[in-house]
């Protein structure tokens, strides 16, 4: 049972309804956008609840229990409560910057899903520069962090904003180099082609020794840094900067930042599965279930990091990225290049 037939059937109905072709495409893409947005909103709410349960059980306690069975309605309750909170804008804040920061964070988090294949054929727009587009969009969130830091006219927020800008930029580079070594092998930038090049399990890029695992580890480390999660959660380090850049945000604005962070986490894992764990390839289950399973496993790994490791200091963070991660990723790229053109390994 593949969901794509339903979409094909709907598309034919739409095309048969006599609208001009331009309008048909607009409506189809709009519906696809709405469906992806709805799916991701549900996934974000699920992830928030799942993080609290995983963290609870790692610490030998029960997470939310009193709102529904095992507290499944907890995140909905949080969202509705945040909806009705008073929306405070600090007096001396830079109003437009303060207002637009969460909007940009929210929009940037969603735009990355245009070229992510949720399943066989389940992709909004299969651009042939898929991965390049995603990398460009994810670095868009830095702007929102800087705006939030500057807009809230608070020393802590400013420090948090600066730190997060430095961190995301400096971890962007090793991540891109790791992705290059994969794209080098897959031979194309389009996500669908990358997934198709990992048809069988031994063809997953994770198992392409020796450069696959190294690229995967570099990608995961850079991914955690990208989404500001421990051990790199400097920007909203509770202990040092009280709440980092989102110190002045309350109510819906804070909810937007909160959801954007979880959607970023889902994005990083989704890209990780498409690049390294063979996207939707899987023997029996429908393709989108494989994709979802692998992504949730990677999300679990990210959560696991958060509840185990202490936090790095800012200069150690920079040093780790520029002096350690980057050289290794370059060496890895050269290694991948040698392997590619020595011709031994192209299964």
């Amino acid at each position: 049972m593949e969901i794509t037939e339903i979409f094909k059937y709907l598309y034919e109905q739409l095309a048969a309804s006599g609208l001009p072709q331009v309008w048909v495409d607009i409506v189809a893409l709009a519906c696809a956008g709405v469906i992806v947005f709805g799916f991701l909103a549900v996934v974000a709410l699920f992830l928030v609840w799942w993080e609290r349960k995983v963290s609870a059980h790692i610490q030998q306690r029960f997470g939310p229990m009193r709102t529904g069975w095992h507290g499944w309605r907890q995140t909905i309750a949080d969202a509705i409560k945040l909806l009705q909170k008073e929306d405070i804008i600090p007096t001396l804040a830079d109003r437009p910057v303060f207002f637009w920061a969460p909007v940009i964070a929210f929009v940037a988090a969603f735009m990355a899903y245009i070229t992510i294949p949720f399943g066989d054929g389940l992709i909004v727009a299969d651009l042939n520069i898929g991965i390049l587009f995603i990398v460009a969009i994810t670095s868009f969130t830095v702007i929102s962090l800087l705006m939030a830091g500057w807009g809230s006219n608070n020393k802590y927020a400013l420090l948090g904003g600066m730190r997060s800008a430095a961190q995301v930029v400096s971890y962007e580079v090793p991540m891109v180099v790791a992705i290059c070594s994969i794209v080098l092998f897959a031979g194309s930038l389009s996500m669908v082609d990358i997934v198709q090049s990992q048809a069988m399990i031994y063809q997953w890029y994770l198992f392409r020794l020796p450069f696959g695992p190294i690229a995967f580890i570099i990608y995961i480390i850079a991914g955690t840094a990208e989404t500001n999660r421990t051990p790199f959660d400097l920007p909203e380090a509770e202990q040092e900067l009280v709440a980092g850049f989102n110190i002045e945000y309350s109510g819906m604005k804070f909810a937007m930042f909160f959801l954007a962070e979880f959607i970023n986490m889902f994005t990083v894992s989704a890209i990780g599965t498409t690049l390294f764990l063979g996207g939707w390839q899987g023997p029996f289950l429908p393709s989108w279930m494989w994709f979802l399973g692998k992504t949730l496993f990677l999300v679990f790994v990210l959560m696991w990091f958060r509840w185990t490791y202490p936090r790095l200091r800012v200069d150690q963070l920079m040093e780790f990225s520029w002096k350690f991660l980057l050289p290794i990723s370059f060496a890895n790229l050269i290694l991948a290049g040698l392997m590619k053109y020595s011709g031994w390994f192209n299964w």
Partner: protein
Amino acid sequence: MGVIKKLPVYLEKIPGGNIVTTTLDYVFSQSRASSLWYLLFGTACCAIELMATGASRYDFDRLGMIFRASPRQSDLIIAAGTITKKMAPRLKLLYDQMAEPRYVIAMGGCTVSGGPFYYDSYAVEKGIDHIVPVDVYIPGCPPRPESLLEGCLTLQKRVKRMKIRDWS
């Protein structure tokens, strides 16, 4: 937020209006009660009991209460520990920074009426109800984690009684 407050007035005029308001009341008050984010604010011995309540055995997270570091995002202050005369303006400052539907739990004897430092102490505020409006008082010095949880349940019942009409 403002528009929601004026909602019951408009809904009265529509025939089935009050059914909508009651369901809205129910949804809002339930969600507000079951996700009280408390501010990480503790001064003396009650702060240790607050941490113990947040730990594994008496889990605060079970009631949907996670600690937030910034007053902007929290909607409940658990005043845990002695509030001295030097600390009182700070507590007032924190309370003012919180977003509107906000509550205060006075945990422990010192916040109810000065506790063991009521007599003979020149530096302790005799209770905090003249600094911030207090919703629930919890006796004890320090109160057991269970009595703190029971106090939070009392606060949740009080929040569930709140209607949209009397939102401040």
